[in-house]
């Protein structure tokens, strides 16, 4: 039902941003892949194949978009537990992630030492992450400082939830980044919940982005359901960083589609209406609608993609499942550097 005129306008959108059809189709693929993996992880958890899941349904659109301008080889990424989609774009495979879920010896993030969701991958310059919320922000700034000092040209991207912005570490990191004009993209994925704590109990401002001014850096907000807008602000920040103009704070407003983790029951603190509302903001659906509107996807191609994703995830699940658990006394290793 889209008029020819409207069609041109929307078509113009991704091209105007310098994104090819190929780009946006790949972006869609990653969003759908992350969602597919996500669904699978929860199924595996419920089936007793995994002890714990924490993932990013609703956050995938902004993650893929923000990662898109990055140089996958050269640049750094400092993730948090919702960064499933971002890590996939950066280079981790579905198998890599499931090896973590199953705590296998070959899990590239931690060899099965950490809970699922604690991503890290040296080959893709994804820093190892921990659980304490907020600590990764100073790390990212330190990485970026090193890039600048060493003139490597690397850009760093770091992600956190809006809850994490309450931490002292977040403040200290932004301040340091601004003072030294570090080449870093400071991403906040604002889903308006820190587990059960709503935004109004986390801050007295309606948006995290307004805090940027207090550090002397630009702060932007984008709707996480508008994948192209998410890309646009990330690209701008990326180019700024490249030009040596320092950090940008980027806030993405995203829906949290599920419970906080497999240990949480969101029904205790979210109403049915709220859950219905957030589902409308699902970036998978909004981006799919855009691509259908511009004629890049249709029922049949969508089916193909879904099919391919399902098959890939099936294969990866089998592969990860077959991988061995770590040997007990390897637990003493890697306390310190081993020659």
């Amino acid at each position, binding site marked *: 039902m889209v008029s020819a005129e409207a069609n041109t306008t929307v078509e113009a959108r991704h091209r105007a941003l310098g994104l090819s059809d190929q780009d946006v189709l790949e972006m869609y693929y990653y969003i759908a892949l992350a969602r597919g993996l996500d669904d699978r992880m929860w199924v595996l958890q419920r089936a007793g194949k995994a002890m714990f899941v924490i993932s990013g349904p609703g956050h995938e659109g902004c993650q893929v978009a923000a990662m898109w301008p990055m140089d996958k080889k050269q640049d750094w990424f400092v993730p948090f537990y919702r960064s499933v989609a971002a890590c996939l774009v950066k280079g981790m495979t579905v198998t890599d992630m499931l090896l973590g879920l199953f705590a296998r010896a070959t899990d590239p993030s931690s060899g*099965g030492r950490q809970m699922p969701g604690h991503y890290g991958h040296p080959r893709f310059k994804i820093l190892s992450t921990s659980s*304490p919320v907020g600590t990764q922000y100073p790390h990212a700034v330190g990485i970026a400082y090193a890039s600048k000092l060493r003139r490597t040209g690397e850009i760093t991207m770091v992600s956190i939830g809006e809850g994490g912005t309450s931490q*002292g570490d977040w403040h200290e990191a932004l301040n340091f980044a601004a003072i030294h004009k570090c080449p870093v993209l400071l991403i906040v994925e604002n889903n308006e919940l820190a587990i059960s704590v709503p935004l109004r109990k986390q801050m007295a401002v309606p948006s995290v982005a307004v805090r940027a001014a207090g550090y002397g850096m630009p702060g932007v907000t984008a709707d996480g359901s508008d994948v192209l807008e998410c890309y646009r602000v990330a690209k701008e920040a990326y180019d700024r960083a490249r030009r040596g103009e320092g950090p940008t704070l980027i806030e993405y407003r995203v829906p949290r589609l599920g419970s906080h983790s497999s240990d949480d029951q969101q029904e205790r603190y979210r109403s049915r209406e709220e859950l219905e509302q957030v589902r409308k903001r699902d970036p998978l659906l909004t981006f799919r609608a855009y691509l259908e509107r511009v004629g890049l996807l249709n029922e049949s191609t969508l089916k193909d993609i879904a099919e391919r994703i399902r098959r890939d995830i099936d294969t990866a699940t089998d592969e990860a499942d077959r991988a061995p658990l*770590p040997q007990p006394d390897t*637990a003493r290793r890697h306390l310190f550097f081993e020659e």
Partner: protein
Amino acid sequence: MAEIRYIDAINQAHHEEMAQDARVLVLGEDVGRKGGVFGATMGLVEKFGEDRVIDTPLAESSIAGVAIGMACNGLLPIAEFQFADFIHPAFNQIVSEAARMRYRSNGVYGCPVVFRAPYGGSHGTALYHSQSIEAFYAHVPGLKVVAPSTPYDAKGMLKAAIRDPDPVLFLEHKRMYRIVRGEVPDGDYTVPIGPAVVRRPGRDLSLFAYGWMLSESLAAAEEMAREGIEVEVVDIRTLAPLDTATILKSVAKTNRALIVYEDNQFLGYGAEIAARIAEEAFFDLDAPVMRLAGPDVPGIPFAKPLEEWFSISRGKIAASIRKLAAY
């Protein structure tokens, strides 16, 4: 008296103290509508309102710091840290501020805060949701540290902690929450902070433990009794200030000491007990002072085989008992 779970005992203490004293208030992450991630604060916000049951921003240093200020101005705050692993950002506030307020003001300002923290390993809790943190804090003069081992003590000691005029770190081994049950009176009572208690008398050796390790040690002691070794199991309960007298009395009787703790061994809490026995009960000893503790790696890894490698089970405790008894 009802048989209730450890977590229910904690929850009851909150309800009763908040009902009887308007100065008591709870703050922490998700303590409101969610009732805490373990349910310790369930039902409180509905009964006492958002002003006294504060869902805080995700910022532990200010949870501690704001609680300290509240305590200095007439309230009795209970600050919940969601996991003991996440108390670390508040280290400075607890160590430099809460623990020193009274001493540095020469006694004129007190700081009656209760810091609650679920600690220790359970299944699949991995590096960052399983830490034992008692050694860091028991080392700090001015801070009381308790780790009750039964639902009865959990309720009674939490009430004592809330009423204590000084800061108390209240440690709850999270493995106990749902599986340890015990008789707990409905009404009001307290269990004093300070005294240790002999949970099981025995003549052959003394075993010192607290928290979940106490449960496992009691189980191991039962097993050993079948082998003819009678273990005296002492529940330390209050880690600081330590009830040395009860420890020395037990060693004087059994002439052997085993200390069991889940934290990594090096400078873990048991080191102090061992050092005291080596100094003050030396001539009572017939055998080395033995410690059974977690390996010196940064935490309990996630994968099951690694977790088992780390964890102290009743089987490992039994093996240590046999070894020590054999001297």
